[in-house]
């Protein structure tokens, strides 16, 4: 009798399985997992593209590919990495952790959440499809303008530009949906007693990110739509011959583009102090200062956009304004750095993989911020603009500050998400290989930029050969090292040492009070049965 009833019980407890479960799920953890897996896949796709580019750059002269294909690779690499790897990873964490950290049963608008995710794969396909179409003789390949879509080049480009425009629209809709969900969740779903100023840092980071997305996505959407009408419907928004203004496009793009870089990083700034305090075993330093800095950076980030095109020809007062406002961002950023370091100060630190990534992240992201300050100087930028110095700068911010930050988060939360510990030695090896090969890839690019090597050009003068060779070899090592990351994640999802609920000795926060992995439904409250 009891046997029969248990069997029946178990049968009924299966969750919907197969593809349907994933297509229709409104569960925040399922959706979070899908975002993270999608992000990892696209990280590999974008990585392969740029490794081909690096191999081409191994020697001066053209070896592997046509210049036009080279242009397509760098543009799609950036779009994929920014929109399909980094942003989805941050959104994946938001889905997984925001409800857990806020003590909410789920995101406020679960169905919207499902849509937000399922818009991403079509967008990724749109971005990459023109490569495949070109193989069949349709069109001339993917967008070849770089990720910035500058007019008039993008007005003249092939069908790849149209595909990219639609991809951007879809990605924008997805981001806005995600942001609305985050904002509504944070404002309506916090557990009783959790005031805004008691929220975990990660929630603050995401809240500002969501506001920035809401503020800037319509501008991007408008910009690419005007591009589309210029291309096909005879308008002249960006065509000087028709009374339009190509520089207007740059204003529109960077009005979105500069806040976008903080959109990518604020979630990381959110969970990083949580990781630091966990492994320093002392509470985070300067919670309020960090929250106010987030606000300061968020607000400043929408008024500094023109530092991306100082050289285009602007009135001097405009140059001065954009220079000083840009430099002003380093003040709140410095406050954050101070808080991160002070959080570790005299803590009893241990260096598990997440902490290794966190400490490495502070140093490397610091280099990114400082080199940004160099570029913010109008006079200096006249020389550095559009050189490899800029490439190195934004890889210190986006790869070290963004991707390596995400990696810290992955190692930190993976045991919580899967219920198993990952392989610690492998994790450490992954960190050291990544950190060393990353530096060896991009430090040479600083020097190349200082020496005047332009970016986005597939060939270069002989004098740049040595640094490029080093950079390429290191990039290959960097790419290969990521296989360790994937292997570690997959084997951790499959099994391994059981993780405890708290996972880390110093962990603090609501998510660590739930079992590892948390039950399918995070909320334990059943309907009242008296």
């Amino acid at each position, binding site marked *: 009798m009891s046997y029969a009833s248990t069997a029946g*019980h178990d049968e009924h407890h299966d969750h919907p399985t197969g593809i349907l479960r994933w297509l229709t799920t*409104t569960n925040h953890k399922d959706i979070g997992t899908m975002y993270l897996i999608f992000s990892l896949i696209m990280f590999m796709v974008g990585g392969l593209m740029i490794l081909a580019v690096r191999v081409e750059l191994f020697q001066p002269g053209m070896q592997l590919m046509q210049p036009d294909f080279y242009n397509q690779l760098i543009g799609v690499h950036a779009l994929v990495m920014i929109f399909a790897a980094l942003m989805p990873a941050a959104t994946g964490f938001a889905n997984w952790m925001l409800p857990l950290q806020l003590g909410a049963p789920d995101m406020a608008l679960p169905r919207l959440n499902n849509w937000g995710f399922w818009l991403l794969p079509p967008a990724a396909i749109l971005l990459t499809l023109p490569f495949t179409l070109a193989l069949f003789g349709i069109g001339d390949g993917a967008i070849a303008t770089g990720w910035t879509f500058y007019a008039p080049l993008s007005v003249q480009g092939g069908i790849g530009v149209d595909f990219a425009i639609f991809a951007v629209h879809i990605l924008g809709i997805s981001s806005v949906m995600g942001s*609305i969900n985050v904002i509504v969740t944070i404002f309506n779903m916090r557990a009783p007693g959790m005031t805004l100023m008691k929220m975990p840092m990660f929630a603050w980071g995401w809240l500002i990110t969501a506001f920035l997305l809401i503020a800037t996505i*319509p501008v991007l959407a*408008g*910009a690419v739509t*005007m591009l589309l009408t210029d291309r096909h419907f005879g308008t002249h*928004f960006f065509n000087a011959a028709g009374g339009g203004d190509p520089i207007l496009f740059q*204003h529109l793009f960077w009005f979105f583009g500069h806040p976008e870089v903080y959109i990518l990083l604020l979630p990381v700034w959110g969970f990083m102090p949580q990781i630091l305090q966990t492994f320093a075993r002392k509470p985070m330093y300067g919670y309020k200062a960090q929250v106010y800095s987030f606000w300061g950076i968020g607000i400043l980030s929408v008024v500094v956009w023109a530092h991306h095109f100082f050289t285009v020809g602007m009135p001097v007062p405009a140059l001065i304004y954009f220079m000083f406002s840009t430099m002003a961002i380093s003040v709140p950023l410095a406050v954050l750095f101070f808080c991160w370091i002070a959080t570790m100060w005299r803590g009893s630190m241990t260096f598990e993989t997440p902490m290794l990534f966190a400490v490495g992240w502070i140093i490397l992201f610091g280099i990114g911020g400082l080199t940004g300050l160099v570029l913010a100087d109008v006079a200096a930028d006249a020389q550095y603009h559009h050189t490899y110095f800029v490439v190195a700068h934004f890889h210190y911010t986006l790869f070290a500050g963004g991707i390596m930050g995400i990696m810290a988060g992955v190692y930190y939360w993976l045991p919580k998400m899967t219920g198993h510990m990952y392989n610690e030695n492998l994790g450490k090896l992954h960190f050291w290989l990544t950190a060393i090969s990353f530096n060896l890839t991009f430090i040479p690019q600083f020097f190349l930029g200082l020496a005047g090597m332009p970016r986005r050009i597939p060939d270069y003068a002989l004098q740049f050969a040595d640094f490029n060779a080093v950079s390429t070899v290191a990039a290959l090592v960097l790419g290969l090292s990521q296989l360790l990351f994937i292997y570690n994640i997959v084997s951790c999802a499959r099994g391994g040492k059981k993780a405890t609920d708290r996972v880390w000795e110093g962990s603090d926060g609501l998510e660590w009070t739930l079992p590892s992995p948390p039950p399918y439904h995070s909320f334990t409250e059943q309907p009242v*049965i008296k």
Partner: protein
Amino acid sequence: MAVVAITAAFSLLVGLGFSFAGAWLVLPFAGLEVLAIAYAFYYIHCHAGDYESITIEGDSLTIEKHDYKHDSRTVFNRYWAGVLVRELPCGDHSLYLRSHGKEVEFGRHFMNDDQRLQLAEQLKKRVGVIT
């Protein structure tokens, strides 16, 4: 509300600013977005108080539902009521409580399949003929 107002004001300001610069196509997107945000907040505002509950007290089993402005309350006799689980074509299950030819569905929006089945198990132990 303040949140919606501030985001709306900012988005529209940006949209207008760019319109004056000649890029008026930003404005419709900003408008659509503001509508979406406002609707999301409105929706949550309306449905934040929604709930369904089952109360078992003595001989009675009370099912209460609150959906925006609609309230409903059904009282069954605990020992005469039955718990019914129906499988839907999509493979999910719906949960009903019934008695005297009257049926009330429970947990359609607020629970997923797994929770409904779990609740059905629990209810079966406490409702109807208890052995």
